[in-house]
């Protein structure tokens, strides 16, 4: 907690200033045109619907599917991540592979997997499991690296690797890994909603339909049910219930009629569909083929990748700055010192609502109200991420030890709490940066011209080869921002502060 005292070559103030300046520049480049001539009529209907949730239309089976997809997707992802975590630190190939897996959004995975597996449970599970395996491998490996080695040192000579791991390392890390996996499950629930938007029968399927057709009462019922699911997660997802959840989930997966020929489909996908069209039937040794490839690629680069990347970065920058402001306002709402015993549960409930509303859904609704511009996407990302950062900061604020004569209210906030937590605050923001970017890219699917916008176009034109190139470009941009964020955190000497939501905090009783 002494990070504040250690001023590195880059100070908090300078870093914050640069980010604010970049966000300001991006603000000028961003498109904020509010196009809706009469948003109020729709907003009134929305509020009227939300005030009267239509619980009769709640498809209970979709709730079951939502949980099953999340359990299996996260379970398989975390399982694969755990196995990968052991050799992760030693294998560069594995690290690159995991980075690639996790930098592609679940929605993009689902769109690609659908080409082969169709609308099926396999598509849904893999779309979650693949990126989550990449994330879990990295985080579990960090947890293993950070663990106390003293037990390992007292093992008798000649102890096997597996025994050493199982008896000396695993007990050290099991709690953290379990904690992280259970937290990931919450993210998994949110990810299943996105699967609904591409057609798998989760709650997202019904939410999308209800919002699209303006059946807001039904949408409200699904949203409230979803909040309840997330809000009560700690009660029903715990070590003891996990075997039941995992055991039951395969049997309650949705059954979608029709099964594509997976073997033939996979072969065709790998040898034809994703191969750039000029290479499909051109001779590879013929220079003309490569000239054609370049003339195929150049317009994609100049007309889609470059403008899409710029828009994605602009969106992410403004959303990040808005997230920062939002989190600064929100976090006192969940901190004991600022709200008292009565206000805090309310603040927590508010933040559960704010952070469990999927940004994709939020952007979609805001698009109806504000018309097509970058504004809905920015607001959606900022609201969602400010909810998350605010919640984490609130927990840290509760963990601070104050002097008995500490001031209260704004004085406490401005002169003690915030300065003491500022490094932590920056660490969270820098960490959210790449996540915001990843999500900003997919918001293109609802019409902002980020990289996802062009992916959507390519898939609509059945140019899967182009879509794959664009997804790879998105991946590179995400990885670059991730590297920059890591470098900045190191320069600010906040690299060792927790950025994961799951790391048990001193005040965390949910352990």
């Amino acid at each position: 907690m002494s990070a504040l005292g250690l001023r590195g070559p880059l100070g908090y103030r300078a870093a914050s200033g640069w980010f604010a300046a970049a966000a300001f520049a991006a603000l000028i480049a961003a498109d904020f045109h509010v196009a809706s001539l009469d948003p109020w009529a729709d907003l009134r209907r929305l509020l009227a619907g939300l005030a009267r949730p239509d619980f009769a239309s709640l498809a209970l089976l979709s709730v079951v599917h939502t949980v099953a997809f999340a359990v299996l997707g996260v379970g398989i992802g975390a399982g694969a991540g755990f196995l990968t975590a052991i050799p992760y630190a030693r294998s560069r190939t594995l690290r690159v592979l995991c980075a690639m897996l996790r930098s592609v959004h679940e929605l993009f995975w689902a769109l690609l997997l659908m080409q082969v597996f169709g609308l099926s449970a396999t598509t849904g599970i893999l779309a979650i499991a693949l990126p989550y395996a990449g994330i879990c491998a990295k985080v579990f490996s960090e947890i293993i690296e950070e663990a106390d080695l003293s037990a390992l040192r007292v093992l008798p000579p000649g102890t096997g690797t597996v025994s050493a791991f199982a008896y000396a390392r695993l007990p050290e890390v099991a709690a953290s890994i379990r904690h992280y996996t259970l937290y990931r499950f919450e993210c998994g629930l949110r990810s299943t909603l996105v699967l609904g938007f591409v057609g798998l029968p989760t709650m997202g399927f019904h939410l999308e339909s209800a919002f699209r057709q303006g059946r807001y009462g039904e949408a409200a019922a699904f949203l409230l049910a979803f909040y309840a699911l997330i809000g009560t997660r700690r009660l029903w997802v715990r070590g003891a219930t996990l075997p039941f959840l995992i055991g039951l989930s395969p049997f309650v997966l949705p059954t979608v009629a029709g099964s594509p020929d997976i073997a033939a489909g996979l072969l065709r996908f790998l040898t034809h569909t994703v191969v750039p069209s000029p290479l499909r039937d051109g001779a590879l040794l013929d220079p003309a083929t490569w000239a054609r490839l370049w003339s195929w690629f150049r317009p994609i680069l100049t007309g889609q990748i470059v403008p899409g990347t710029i828009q994605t970065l602009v969106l992410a920058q403004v959303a990040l700055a808005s997230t920062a402001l939002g989190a600064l306002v929100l976090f006192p709402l969940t901190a004991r010192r600022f709200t008292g015993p009565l206000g805090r549960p309310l603040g927590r409930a508010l933040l559960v609502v704010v952070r469990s509303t999927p940004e994709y859904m939020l952007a979609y609704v805001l698009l109806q109200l504000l018309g097509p511009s970058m504004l809905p996407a920015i607001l959606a990302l900022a609201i969602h991420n400010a909810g998350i950062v605010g919640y984490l900061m609130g927990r840290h604020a509760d963990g601070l030890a104050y002097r008995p004569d500490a001031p209260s209210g704004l004085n406490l906030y401005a002169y003690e709490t915030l300065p003491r937590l500022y490094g932590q605050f920056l660490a969270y923001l820098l960490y959210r940066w790449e996540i915001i970017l990843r999500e900003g890219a997919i918001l293109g699917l609802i019409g902002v011209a980020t990289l996802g916008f062009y992916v959507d176009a390519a898939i609509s034109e059945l140019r899967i080869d182009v879509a794959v190139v664009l997804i790879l470009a998105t991946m590179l941009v995400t990885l670059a921002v991730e590297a920059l964020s890591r470098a900045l955190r190191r320069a600010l000497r906040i690299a060792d502060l927790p950025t994961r939501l799951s790391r048990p905090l001193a005040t965390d009783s949910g352990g």
Partner: protein
Amino acid sequence: MRVWHLAAAVLSLLASGPALAQGAPAQGTPAQGAKPPLVFTGIPDQDESRLVERFGRVATYLEGKLGVPVRYIPVKNYPAAVTAFTNGQVQLAWFGGFTGVQARRAVPGSRAIAQGAEDAAFKTYFIANAKTGLKPGKEFPKASEGKTFTFGSRASTSGRLMPEFFIRQAFPGKTPEQVYSRVGFSGDHSRTIQLVQSGAFEVGAVDYTVWDLDTKAGKVDASAVSVIWESPPYPDYQWTVRGDVDTIYGAGFTDRLRDALIGVTDPAILEPFGRSRFIAVDNAAYAPLEEVGRSTGLLD
């Protein structure tokens, strides 16, 4: 130790996951012999509740006529319908003109077998928000230049391909993005109407049958949005079937399927389609759309 249990459980699932998913469709109705169900889909071009109603009735009807189980699977967007057709999840689909062309190019041997009587000469309506002051006319509404404009789905024929073609014709050498101050894709025709009605976009291009159905359903506020132009006719929606259905369901199945579709007389089936009846059609009828697709750069 729980982590090991978790890892073990997860591993066993990893092995069984795909198998489960594949086994799933076998749960259909086994009473009707060993034939796998005929699965079909349709492009989600309008409100989902109407789609479920319309395709549910088609499934029941075809099941009775063909003697094989028939299942409808809903999809969320146009490319998902085409993908389900190309990867073999569905054998039959109600496609728009352009999605049909896409699907048949990707699946050799597949055939367009029936279209609505109205689809031989389909139309697009250009609609405008009342606040734009745009007036209906016989010629392409060139006064819409500089306004905000929304297509339907990106892969829609009446909501994208043909309107884009007419826009490019009216403004030679310009793309829609250069003609209009902002170009959006609403996703489906009902949404296009809502967005133009709410003013989120000033002008839009919409399937005329959906406009008529939504008007009849009382969803269109005539004081806020109106038709300003009716496009020249072109071929649109059709039933397309995969070439391998005859080997699965027996020789002549494609013909029986086409006859069953053409034989629909029940208004309860036809009315949700906004069609008076279905008529026979072939792939060649859609050659003009392929040409348009190439000229607008949507097809290679």
